[in-house]
Protein backbone atom coordinates (compact mmCIF):
# COMPACT_ATOMS: atom_id res chain seq x y z
CA UNK A 1 0.00 0.00 0.00
CA UNK A 2 2.78 2.43 0.94
CA UNK A 3 5.97 3.25 -0.96
CA UNK A 4 9.32 2.22 0.49
CA UNK A 5 10.04 5.84 1.37
CA UNK A 6 6.80 6.11 3.33
CA UNK A 7 7.56 2.89 5.17
CA UNK A 8 11.07 4.09 5.90
CA UNK A 9 9.85 7.38 7.36
CA UNK A 10 7.12 5.61 9.29
CA UNK A 11 9.39 3.04 10.85
CA UNK A 12 12.36 5.37 11.29
CA UNK A 13 10.78 8.74 11.75
CA UNK A 14 13.24 11.64 11.47
CA UNK A 15 13.07 14.39 14.07
CA UNK A 16 10.48 12.77 16.26
CA UNK A 17 10.19 14.40 19.64
CA UNK A 18 9.75 17.72 21.35
CA UNK A 19 11.73 20.97 21.45
CA UNK A 20 11.80 22.65 24.81
CA UNK A 21 11.01 26.33 24.62
CA UNK A 22 10.41 26.07 20.92
CA UNK A 23 10.16 29.24 18.87
CA UNK A 24 6.82 28.01 17.60
CA UNK A 25 4.54 25.04 18.13
CA UNK A 26 1.55 24.11 16.02
CA UNK A 27 -0.94 21.33 16.44
CA UNK A 28 -3.44 20.48 13.74
CA UNK A 29 -5.92 17.72 13.04
CA UNK A 30 -8.50 16.18 15.20
CA UNK A 31 -8.62 12.99 17.19
CA UNK A 32 -12.10 12.40 15.86
CA UNK A 33 -10.75 11.90 12.38
CA UNK A 34 -7.82 9.94 13.66
CA UNK A 35 -4.96 12.32 12.84
CA UNK A 36 -3.22 14.87 15.03
CA UNK A 37 0.13 16.43 14.14
CA UNK A 38 2.23 18.71 16.30
CA UNK A 39 5.24 20.56 14.95
CA UNK A 40 7.96 22.24 17.01
CA UNK A 41 10.18 24.81 15.35
CA UNK A 42 13.45 26.24 16.60
CA UNK A 43 14.07 29.37 14.56
CA UNK A 44 17.19 31.44 14.89
CA UNK A 45 17.40 35.23 14.85
CA UNK A 46 17.88 35.30 11.13
CA UNK A 47 14.62 33.50 10.64
CA UNK A 48 16.23 30.21 9.71
CA UNK A 49 14.75 26.99 11.00
CA UNK A 50 17.54 25.50 13.01
CA UNK A 51 15.59 22.53 14.20
CA UNK A 52 12.21 21.01 13.75
CA UNK A 53 10.52 18.15 15.58
CA UNK A 54 7.13 16.50 15.46
CA UNK A 55 4.71 14.30 17.33
CA UNK A 56 1.90 12.57 15.51
CA UNK A 57 -1.15 10.55 16.39
CA UNK A 58 -2.29 8.89 13.19
CA UNK A 59 -1.77 6.32 10.52
CA UNK A 60 1.44 5.35 8.80
CA UNK A 61 1.03 8.07 6.21
CA UNK A 62 0.46 10.68 8.89
CA UNK A 63 3.69 9.75 10.64
CA UNK A 64 5.66 9.57 7.40
CA UNK A 65 4.42 12.91 6.10
CA UNK A 66 5.23 14.55 9.44
CA UNK A 67 8.69 13.10 9.37
CA UNK A 68 9.30 14.14 5.79
CA UNK A 69 7.93 17.62 6.43
CA UNK A 70 10.43 18.19 9.23
CA UNK A 71 13.23 17.16 6.89
CA UNK A 72 12.02 19.53 4.22
CA UNK A 73 11.81 22.62 6.42
CA UNK A 74 14.97 22.11 8.43
CA UNK A 75 17.61 24.64 7.50
CA UNK A 76 15.13 26.66 5.47
CA UNK A 77 14.10 30.22 6.08
CA UNK A 78 10.65 30.92 7.36
CA UNK A 79 9.56 32.09 3.92
CA UNK A 80 11.01 29.03 2.23
CA UNK A 81 9.33 26.77 4.79
CA UNK A 82 6.06 28.44 4.06
CA UNK A 83 6.27 27.28 0.47
CA UNK A 84 6.79 23.63 1.33
CA UNK A 85 3.51 22.28 0.02
CA UNK A 86 1.77 18.99 0.63
CA UNK A 87 2.66 18.13 -2.95
CA UNK A 88 6.34 18.54 -2.18
CA UNK A 89 5.95 16.27 0.84
CA UNK A 90 4.14 13.65 -1.22
CA UNK A 91 6.69 13.79 -4.00
CA UNK A 92 9.52 13.41 -1.56
CA UNK A 93 7.79 10.26 -0.29
CA UNK A 94 7.32 8.88 -3.81
CA UNK A 95 3.59 9.32 -3.50
CA UNK A 96 0.72 8.40 -1.21
CA UNK A 97 -2.41 6.27 -1.73
CA UNK A 98 -5.34 8.52 -2.75
CA UNK A 99 -7.16 8.01 0.56
CA UNK A 100 -4.08 9.31 2.38
CA UNK A 101 -3.54 12.58 0.57
CA UNK A 102 -5.19 14.42 3.43
CA UNK A 103 -2.24 13.41 5.65
CA UNK A 104 0.14 15.46 3.52
CA UNK A 105 -2.22 18.42 3.73
CA UNK A 106 -2.17 18.06 7.48
CA UNK A 107 1.63 18.14 7.46
CA UNK A 108 1.58 21.37 5.47
CA UNK A 109 -0.93 22.82 7.89
CA UNK A 110 1.10 21.75 10.89
CA UNK A 111 4.08 23.71 9.64
CA UNK A 112 1.90 26.70 9.01
CA UNK A 113 0.43 26.41 12.48
CA UNK A 114 3.87 26.32 14.06
CA UNK A 115 4.96 29.29 11.98
CA UNK A 116 1.83 31.17 13.01
CA UNK A 117 2.62 30.46 16.65
CA UNK A 118 6.17 31.69 16.08
CA UNK A 119 4.88 34.85 14.43
CA UNK A 120 2.42 35.53 17.22
CA UNK A 121 4.98 34.94 19.93
CA UNK A 122 7.46 37.21 18.21
CA UNK A 123 4.88 39.68 17.16
CA UNK A 124 5.82 39.57 13.54
CA UNK A 125 3.80 39.07 10.42
CA UNK A 126 4.76 36.42 7.92
CA UNK A 127 3.82 37.24 4.36
CA UNK A 128 1.20 34.84 3.00
CA UNK A 129 0.47 33.06 6.27
CA UNK A 130 -3.03 33.04 7.67
CA UNK A 131 -4.35 31.62 10.91
CA UNK A 132 -4.48 27.83 10.67
CA UNK A 133 -7.98 26.40 10.86
CA UNK A 134 -7.43 22.86 12.09
CA UNK A 135 -6.37 23.27 15.66
CA UNK A 136 -6.58 20.52 18.22
CA UNK A 137 -8.21 22.95 20.63
CA UNK A 138 -11.31 22.84 18.44
CA UNK A 139 -11.76 19.22 19.29
CA UNK A 140 -14.94 18.47 21.19
CA UNK A 141 -14.54 14.97 22.55
CA UNK A 142 -12.12 14.13 25.30
CA UNK A 143 -10.80 10.68 26.12
CA UNK A 144 -12.79 9.21 28.96
CA UNK A 145 -12.14 5.90 30.57
Amino acid at each position, binding site marked *: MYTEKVMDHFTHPRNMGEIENASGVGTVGNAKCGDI*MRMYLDIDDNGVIRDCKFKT*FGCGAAVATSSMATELVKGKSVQEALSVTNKAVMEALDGLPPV*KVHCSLLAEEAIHAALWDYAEKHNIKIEGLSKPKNDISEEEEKPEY
Partner: protein
Amino acid sequence: MENKIYLDNAATTKTRPEVVEAMLPYFTEKFGNPSSIYEFASQNRKAVDEAREIIAKSLGADISEIYFTAGGTESDNWALKETFDAYASKGNHIITSKIEHHAILHTCEYLEKHGCEVTYVDVDENGVIKLDQLKKAIRPTTILISVMFANNEIGTIQPIKEIGEIAKQHNILFHTDAVQAYGQLPIDVNELGIDMLSASAHKLHGPKGIGFLYIRKGAKLHSLIHGGAQERQRRAGTENVPGIVGFGKAVEIAMATMEDRKKKEIYLRDKLMKRVLAEIPYVRVNGDRSRRLPNNVNFSFQFIEGESLLIMLDMNNICASSGSACTSGSLDPSHVLLAIGLPHEIAHGSLRLTLSEENTEEEIDYTVDKIKEIVDKLRQMSPLYEDFIKKRS
Protein backbone atom coordinates in the same frame (compact mmCIF):
# COMPACT_ATOMS: atom_id res chain seq x y z
CA MET B 1 9.41 -15.02 14.96
CA GLU B 2 10.20 -16.13 11.50
CA ASN B 3 6.79 -17.42 10.63
CA LYS B 4 3.76 -15.27 10.23
CA ILE B 5 1.44 -15.20 13.22
CA TYR B 6 -2.08 -15.06 11.84
CA LEU B 7 -4.47 -13.42 14.28
CA ASP B 8 -7.14 -12.25 11.86
CA ASN B 9 -9.41 -15.28 11.64
CA ALA B 10 -12.51 -13.10 11.74
CA ALA B 11 -11.44 -11.59 8.41
CA THR B 12 -10.88 -14.95 6.80
CA THR B 13 -9.36 -18.30 7.65
CA LYS B 14 -6.95 -20.69 6.07
CA THR B 15 -8.74 -23.36 4.10
CA ARG B 16 -8.04 -26.67 5.80
CA PRO B 17 -5.90 -29.03 3.72
CA GLU B 18 -8.55 -31.74 4.19
CA VAL B 19 -11.09 -29.36 2.73
CA VAL B 20 -8.94 -28.66 -0.33
CA GLU B 21 -8.39 -32.40 -0.66
CA ALA B 22 -12.13 -32.98 -0.66
CA MET B 23 -12.68 -30.27 -3.28
CA LEU B 24 -9.97 -31.27 -5.72
CA PRO B 25 -11.71 -34.14 -7.53
CA TYR B 26 -14.60 -31.83 -8.39
CA PHE B 27 -12.45 -29.58 -10.54
CA THR B 28 -10.86 -31.92 -13.00
CA GLU B 29 -12.48 -35.32 -12.56
CA LYS B 30 -16.05 -35.03 -11.36
CA PHE B 31 -16.57 -31.71 -13.01
CA GLY B 32 -20.08 -32.28 -14.40
CA ASN B 33 -23.00 -29.91 -13.98
CA PRO B 34 -25.26 -31.32 -11.25
CA SER B 35 -28.31 -30.45 -13.35
CA SER B 36 -27.28 -32.78 -16.15
CA ILE B 37 -29.05 -36.11 -16.29
CA TYR B 38 -26.18 -38.45 -17.11
CA GLU B 39 -24.57 -40.64 -14.51
CA PHE B 40 -21.33 -38.66 -14.63
CA ALA B 41 -23.13 -35.63 -13.23
CA SER B 42 -25.28 -37.46 -10.71
CA GLN B 43 -22.25 -38.04 -8.50
CA ASN B 44 -21.99 -34.28 -8.23
CA ARG B 45 -25.62 -33.96 -7.35
CA LYS B 46 -24.98 -36.52 -4.65
CA ALA B 47 -21.92 -34.66 -3.39
CA VAL B 48 -23.94 -31.46 -3.15
CA ASP B 49 -26.70 -33.29 -1.29
CA GLU B 50 -24.21 -34.76 1.15
CA ALA B 51 -22.77 -31.35 1.95
CA ARG B 52 -26.28 -30.02 2.37
CA GLU B 53 -27.04 -32.82 4.77
CA ILE B 54 -23.97 -32.19 6.90
CA ILE B 55 -24.92 -28.54 7.14
CA ALA B 56 -28.60 -29.18 7.84
CA LYS B 57 -27.63 -31.56 10.61
CA SER B 58 -25.24 -29.06 12.15
CA LEU B 59 -28.19 -26.69 12.68
CA GLY B 60 -30.95 -29.15 13.45
CA ALA B 61 -32.53 -28.14 10.16
CA ASP B 62 -34.02 -30.08 7.29
CA ILE B 63 -31.99 -30.48 4.09
CA SER B 64 -34.74 -28.71 2.19
CA GLU B 65 -34.10 -25.61 4.28
CA ILE B 66 -30.47 -25.05 3.22
CA TYR B 67 -29.78 -22.94 0.14
CA PHE B 68 -26.25 -22.43 -1.08
CA THR B 69 -25.19 -18.90 -2.00
CA ALA B 70 -21.95 -17.18 -2.94
CA GLY B 71 -21.25 -16.11 0.64
CA GLY B 72 -22.48 -14.44 3.79
CA THR B 73 -23.09 -11.14 2.06
CA GLU B 74 -25.40 -12.64 -0.55
CA SER B 75 -27.23 -14.57 2.17
CA ASP B 76 -27.78 -11.39 4.17
CA ASN B 77 -28.97 -9.51 1.08
CA TRP B 78 -31.30 -12.33 0.19
CA ALA B 79 -32.88 -12.63 3.62
CA LEU B 80 -33.60 -8.93 3.92
CA LYS B 81 -34.55 -7.97 0.38
CA GLU B 82 -36.76 -10.93 -0.34
CA THR B 83 -38.52 -10.81 3.01
CA PHE B 84 -39.28 -7.18 2.22
CA ASP B 85 -40.58 -8.22 -1.19
CA ALA B 86 -42.52 -11.30 -0.12
CA TYR B 87 -44.18 -9.79 2.94
CA ALA B 88 -45.05 -6.40 1.44
CA SER B 89 -48.73 -7.02 2.07
CA LYS B 90 -48.06 -7.49 5.77
CA GLY B 91 -45.80 -4.51 6.28
CA ASN B 92 -42.61 -2.66 5.49
CA HIS B 93 -40.83 -2.46 8.84
CA ILE B 94 -37.59 -4.22 9.73
CA ILE B 95 -35.81 -4.19 13.08
CA THR B 96 -32.08 -4.68 13.29
CA SER B 97 -29.21 -3.58 15.52
CA LYS B 98 -26.70 -0.77 15.25
CA ILE B 99 -23.75 -3.16 15.22
CA GLU B 100 -24.63 -5.37 12.27
CA HIS B 101 -22.14 -6.08 9.51
CA HIS B 102 -22.32 -3.78 6.49
CA ALA B 103 -23.89 -6.65 4.54
CA ILE B 104 -26.96 -6.00 6.70
CA LEU B 105 -26.66 -2.27 7.25
CA HIS B 106 -26.05 -1.30 3.64
CA THR B 107 -28.83 -3.60 2.52
CA CYS B 108 -31.09 -1.82 4.99
CA GLU B 109 -30.04 1.53 3.54
CA TYR B 110 -30.88 0.23 0.08
CA LEU B 111 -34.26 -0.96 1.28
CA GLU B 112 -34.96 2.36 2.97
CA LYS B 113 -34.64 4.00 -0.43
CA HIS B 114 -37.29 1.58 -1.63
CA GLY B 115 -39.93 2.25 0.98
CA CYS B 116 -38.70 0.12 3.85
CA GLU B 117 -38.68 1.48 7.39
CA VAL B 118 -35.84 0.28 9.54
CA THR B 119 -35.32 0.59 13.27
CA TYR B 120 -31.73 0.26 14.41
CA VAL B 121 -31.78 -0.90 18.02
CA ASP B 122 -29.00 0.25 20.37
CA VAL B 123 -26.56 -1.97 22.18
CA ASP B 124 -25.18 -1.52 25.67
CA GLU B 125 -21.54 -0.73 26.44
CA ASN B 126 -20.64 -4.40 25.98
CA GLY B 127 -22.34 -4.63 22.63
CA VAL B 128 -25.40 -6.56 23.80
CA ILE B 129 -28.62 -5.54 22.09
CA LYS B 130 -31.17 -3.71 24.26
CA LEU B 131 -34.05 -6.14 24.35
CA ASP B 132 -36.54 -3.70 25.84
CA GLN B 133 -35.83 -1.27 23.03
CA LEU B 134 -36.23 -4.08 20.53
CA LYS B 135 -39.59 -5.04 21.97
CA LYS B 136 -40.80 -1.47 21.93
CA ALA B 137 -39.77 -1.12 18.31
CA ILE B 138 -42.22 -3.79 17.18
CA ARG B 139 -45.12 -2.48 15.12
CA PRO B 140 -48.04 -4.19 13.41
CA THR B 141 -46.11 -3.68 10.17
CA THR B 142 -42.91 -5.33 11.40
CA ILE B 143 -42.05 -8.20 9.09
CA LEU B 144 -38.51 -9.06 10.14
CA ILE B 145 -36.08 -8.90 13.01
CA SER B 146 -32.47 -9.35 11.90
CA VAL B 147 -29.86 -9.50 14.65
CA MET B 148 -26.42 -10.99 14.23
CA PHE B 149 -25.49 -14.05 16.25
CA ALA B 150 -22.09 -12.73 17.28
CA ASN B 151 -20.34 -9.54 16.34
CA ASN B 152 -17.37 -9.67 13.99
CA GLU B 153 -15.43 -6.89 15.68
CA ILE B 154 -15.94 -7.17 19.39
CA GLY B 155 -17.09 -10.80 19.53
CA THR B 156 -20.19 -10.16 21.64
CA ILE B 157 -22.76 -12.94 21.42
CA GLN B 158 -26.36 -11.74 21.28
CA PRO B 159 -29.28 -13.16 23.28
CA ILE B 160 -30.52 -15.05 20.25
CA LYS B 161 -32.97 -17.30 22.05
CA GLU B 162 -34.68 -14.34 23.69
CA ILE B 163 -34.93 -12.55 20.37
CA GLY B 164 -36.31 -15.70 18.77
CA GLU B 165 -39.00 -15.85 21.42
CA ILE B 166 -39.94 -12.22 21.00
CA ALA B 167 -40.16 -12.69 17.24
CA LYS B 168 -42.32 -15.77 17.60
CA GLN B 169 -44.66 -14.08 20.09
CA HIS B 170 -45.30 -11.36 17.57
CA ASN B 171 -45.35 -13.65 14.56
CA ILE B 172 -42.37 -11.89 12.99
CA LEU B 173 -39.66 -13.65 11.01
CA PHE B 174 -36.27 -13.76 12.71
CA HIS B 175 -33.07 -13.71 10.69
CA THR B 176 -29.61 -13.96 12.19
CA ASP B 177 -26.29 -13.25 10.51
CA ALA B 178 -24.30 -16.12 11.99
CA VAL B 179 -21.26 -15.62 9.75
CA GLN B 180 -18.96 -15.30 12.77
CA ALA B 181 -20.75 -17.69 15.11
CA TYR B 182 -21.39 -20.65 12.81
CA GLY B 183 -18.76 -23.30 13.40
CA GLN B 184 -17.64 -21.69 16.66
CA LEU B 185 -20.81 -22.04 18.70
CA PRO B 186 -23.45 -24.77 18.73
CA ILE B 187 -26.60 -23.55 16.98
CA ASP B 188 -29.99 -25.22 16.86
CA VAL B 189 -32.40 -23.23 14.75
CA ASN B 190 -35.46 -24.79 16.37
CA GLU B 191 -34.32 -24.33 19.93
CA LEU B 192 -33.37 -20.76 19.21
CA GLY B 193 -36.41 -19.89 17.12
CA ILE B 194 -34.35 -18.82 14.10
CA ASP B 195 -36.23 -18.56 10.81
CA MET B 196 -33.30 -17.59 8.62
CA LEU B 197 -29.57 -17.82 9.14
CA SER B 198 -26.62 -16.64 7.04
CA ALA B 199 -23.21 -18.31 6.99
CA SER B 200 -20.01 -18.11 4.95
CA ALA B 201 -17.56 -20.98 4.50
CA HIS B 202 -14.33 -19.01 4.53
CA LYS B 203 -14.88 -17.98 8.14
CA LEU B 204 -14.63 -21.60 9.31
CA HIS B 205 -11.67 -22.86 7.31
CA GLY B 206 -13.75 -23.52 4.21
CA PRO B 207 -13.26 -21.92 0.80
CA LYS B 208 -14.13 -18.35 -0.14
CA GLY B 209 -17.09 -17.61 -2.38
CA ILE B 210 -19.57 -20.03 -0.88
CA GLY B 211 -22.17 -19.57 1.82
CA PHE B 212 -25.69 -20.56 2.60
CA LEU B 213 -28.96 -19.18 3.77
CA TYR B 214 -31.08 -21.35 6.02
CA ILE B 215 -34.76 -20.61 5.35
CA ARG B 216 -37.30 -22.24 7.61
CA LYS B 217 -40.00 -24.17 5.78
CA GLY B 218 -42.97 -21.88 5.42
CA ALA B 219 -41.06 -18.65 5.04
CA LYS B 220 -42.20 -17.40 1.68
CA LEU B 221 -39.11 -15.67 0.28
CA HIS B 222 -38.52 -15.90 -3.45
CA SER B 223 -35.21 -15.89 -5.25
CA LEU B 224 -32.75 -13.05 -5.07
CA ILE B 225 -30.87 -14.40 -8.09
CA HIS B 226 -33.17 -15.47 -10.93
CA GLY B 227 -32.45 -17.96 -13.68
CA GLY B 228 -32.18 -21.75 -13.80
CA ALA B 229 -34.00 -24.13 -11.49
CA GLN B 230 -31.08 -24.81 -9.13
CA GLU B 231 -31.52 -24.98 -5.35
CA ARG B 232 -35.15 -25.95 -5.69
CA GLN B 233 -35.81 -22.91 -7.87
CA ARG B 234 -34.74 -20.52 -5.17
CA ARG B 235 -31.17 -19.70 -6.11
CA ALA B 236 -30.25 -19.81 -9.78
CA GLY B 237 -26.79 -20.38 -11.21
CA THR B 238 -24.68 -23.45 -11.87
CA GLU B 239 -23.80 -24.89 -8.48
CA ASN B 240 -20.28 -24.23 -7.22
CA VAL B 241 -19.71 -27.92 -6.62
CA PRO B 242 -16.14 -27.80 -5.32
CA GLY B 243 -17.09 -24.90 -3.07
CA ILE B 244 -20.13 -26.71 -1.73
CA VAL B 245 -18.18 -29.91 -1.12
CA GLY B 246 -15.46 -27.92 0.62
CA PHE B 247 -18.02 -26.14 2.76
CA GLY B 248 -19.52 -29.48 3.79
CA LYS B 249 -16.13 -30.83 4.76
CA ALA B 250 -15.26 -27.69 6.69
CA VAL B 251 -18.51 -27.89 8.63
CA GLU B 252 -18.01 -31.57 9.35
CA ILE B 253 -14.60 -30.83 10.86
CA ALA B 254 -15.77 -27.69 12.63
CA MET B 255 -18.58 -29.56 14.36
CA ALA B 256 -16.36 -32.47 15.34
CA THR B 257 -13.63 -30.26 16.78
CA MET B 258 -15.75 -27.49 18.23
CA GLU B 259 -15.32 -28.28 21.90
CA ASP B 260 -11.56 -28.80 21.77
CA ARG B 261 -10.99 -25.73 19.67
CA LYS B 262 -13.11 -23.65 21.96
CA LYS B 263 -11.16 -24.73 25.02
CA LYS B 264 -7.85 -24.04 23.41
CA GLU B 265 -8.88 -20.70 21.96
CA ILE B 266 -10.45 -19.50 25.18
CA TYR B 267 -7.30 -20.40 27.06
CA LEU B 268 -5.10 -18.42 24.66
CA ARG B 269 -7.59 -15.60 24.37
CA ASP B 270 -7.81 -15.15 28.12
CA LYS B 271 -4.07 -15.29 28.52
CA LEU B 272 -3.69 -12.64 25.84
CA MET B 273 -6.24 -10.39 27.52
CA LYS B 274 -4.81 -10.82 30.97
CA ARG B 275 -1.25 -10.12 29.96
CA VAL B 276 -2.14 -7.04 27.94
CA LEU B 277 -4.32 -5.62 30.71
CA ALA B 278 -1.65 -6.30 33.29
CA GLU B 279 1.33 -5.04 31.33
CA ILE B 280 0.05 -2.13 29.28
CA PRO B 281 -1.56 0.93 30.86
CA TYR B 282 -4.46 2.89 29.38
CA VAL B 283 -6.08 0.05 27.55
CA ARG B 284 -9.58 -1.40 27.60
CA VAL B 285 -11.18 -4.56 26.30
CA ASN B 286 -14.11 -3.98 23.99
CA GLY B 287 -17.09 -6.33 23.96
CA ASP B 288 -18.62 -8.50 26.61
CA ARG B 289 -16.16 -10.39 28.77
CA SER B 290 -18.20 -13.57 29.08
CA ARG B 291 -20.78 -13.55 26.25
CA ARG B 292 -17.95 -13.57 23.74
CA LEU B 293 -16.71 -15.58 20.78
CA PRO B 294 -13.99 -17.96 21.97
CA ASN B 295 -11.47 -16.57 19.51
CA ASN B 296 -12.05 -12.84 19.73
CA VAL B 297 -10.07 -10.16 21.56
CA ASN B 298 -10.60 -6.48 20.97
CA PHE B 299 -8.57 -3.77 22.70
CA SER B 300 -8.54 -0.01 22.59
CA PHE B 301 -5.18 1.53 23.34
CA GLN B 302 -5.46 5.12 24.36
CA PHE B 303 -3.39 7.83 22.61
CA ILE B 304 -2.47 5.78 19.56
CA GLU B 305 -4.01 5.07 16.20
CA GLY B 306 -4.84 1.58 14.96
CA GLU B 307 -3.33 1.58 11.50
CA SER B 308 0.12 2.48 12.77
CA LEU B 309 -0.18 -0.30 15.27
CA LEU B 310 -1.21 -2.76 12.57
CA ILE B 311 1.64 -1.84 10.27
CA MET B 312 4.17 -2.22 13.03
CA LEU B 313 2.69 -5.54 14.04
CA ASP B 314 2.84 -6.55 10.39
CA MET B 315 6.54 -5.70 10.31
CA ASN B 316 6.86 -8.14 13.15
CA ASN B 317 4.98 -10.78 11.18
CA ILE B 318 1.75 -10.43 13.11
CA CYS B 319 -1.49 -10.18 11.11
CA ALA B 320 -4.26 -8.33 12.94
CA SER B 321 -7.04 -5.88 12.29
CA SER B 322 -8.40 -2.61 13.62
CA GLY B 323 -11.60 -0.65 13.71
CA SER B 324 -9.61 2.41 12.77
CA ALA B 325 -11.03 4.49 9.96
CA CYS B 326 -7.75 4.31 8.12
CA THR B 327 -8.05 0.61 7.53
CA SER B 328 -11.46 0.83 5.94
CA GLY B 329 -10.97 3.73 3.57
CA SER B 330 -13.74 5.67 5.29
CA LEU B 331 -13.21 8.61 7.59
CA ASP B 332 -15.10 7.37 10.61
CA PRO B 333 -13.91 4.60 12.83
CA SER B 334 -15.93 1.42 13.19
CA HIS B 335 -19.66 1.93 13.71
CA VAL B 336 -19.55 -0.94 16.20
CA LEU B 337 -17.04 0.76 18.48
CA LEU B 338 -18.99 4.00 18.30
CA ALA B 339 -22.22 2.13 19.06
CA ILE B 340 -20.79 0.77 22.31
CA GLY B 341 -20.05 4.35 23.27
CA LEU B 342 -16.34 4.76 22.58
CA PRO B 343 -15.22 8.30 21.72
CA HIS B 344 -13.74 8.59 18.25
CA GLU B 345 -10.09 8.78 19.20
CA ILE B 346 -10.36 5.67 21.33
CA ALA B 347 -12.18 3.82 18.63
CA HIS B 348 -9.29 4.78 16.35
CA GLY B 349 -6.89 3.05 18.69
CA SER B 350 -8.54 -0.34 18.52
CA LEU B 351 -6.94 -3.67 17.77
CA ARG B 352 -8.77 -6.89 16.97
CA LEU B 353 -7.01 -10.21 17.38
CA THR B 354 -8.95 -13.29 16.32
CA LEU B 355 -7.43 -16.66 17.00
CA SER B 356 -7.59 -20.11 15.50
CA GLU B 357 -6.71 -23.47 16.92
CA GLU B 358 -3.39 -23.23 15.07
CA ASN B 359 -2.09 -20.44 17.25
CA THR B 360 0.39 -21.40 19.96
CA GLU B 361 1.07 -20.05 23.38
CA GLU B 362 4.47 -18.96 22.16
CA GLU B 363 2.86 -16.91 19.44
CA ILE B 364 0.56 -15.26 21.94
CA ASP B 365 3.44 -14.39 24.23
CA TYR B 366 5.47 -13.02 21.37
CA THR B 367 2.48 -10.99 20.22
CA VAL B 368 1.93 -9.45 23.63
CA ASP B 369 5.63 -8.54 23.86
CA LYS B 370 5.43 -6.87 20.48
CA ILE B 371 2.20 -5.04 21.24
CA LYS B 372 3.82 -3.68 24.37
CA GLU B 373 6.87 -2.44 22.51
CA ILE B 374 4.88 -0.91 19.69
CA VAL B 375 2.24 0.74 21.84
CA ASP B 376 5.02 2.28 23.84
CA LYS B 377 6.82 3.48 20.74
CA LEU B 378 3.66 4.98 19.26
CA ARG B 379 2.80 6.69 22.50
CA GLN B 380 6.24 8.31 22.55
CA MET B 381 5.29 9.70 19.16
CA SER B 382 1.81 10.79 20.20
CA PRO B 383 0.96 14.41 20.98
CA LEU B 384 -2.10 13.13 22.85
CA TYR B 385 0.10 11.11 25.18
CA GLU B 386 2.43 14.08 25.63
CA ASP B 387 -0.50 16.25 26.69
CA PHE B 388 -1.81 13.55 28.98
CA ILE B 389 1.51 13.09 30.74
CA LYS B 390 2.06 16.81 31.08
CA LYS B 391 -1.37 17.36 32.52
CA ARG B 392 -0.86 14.54 34.98
CA SER B 393 2.50 15.74 36.29
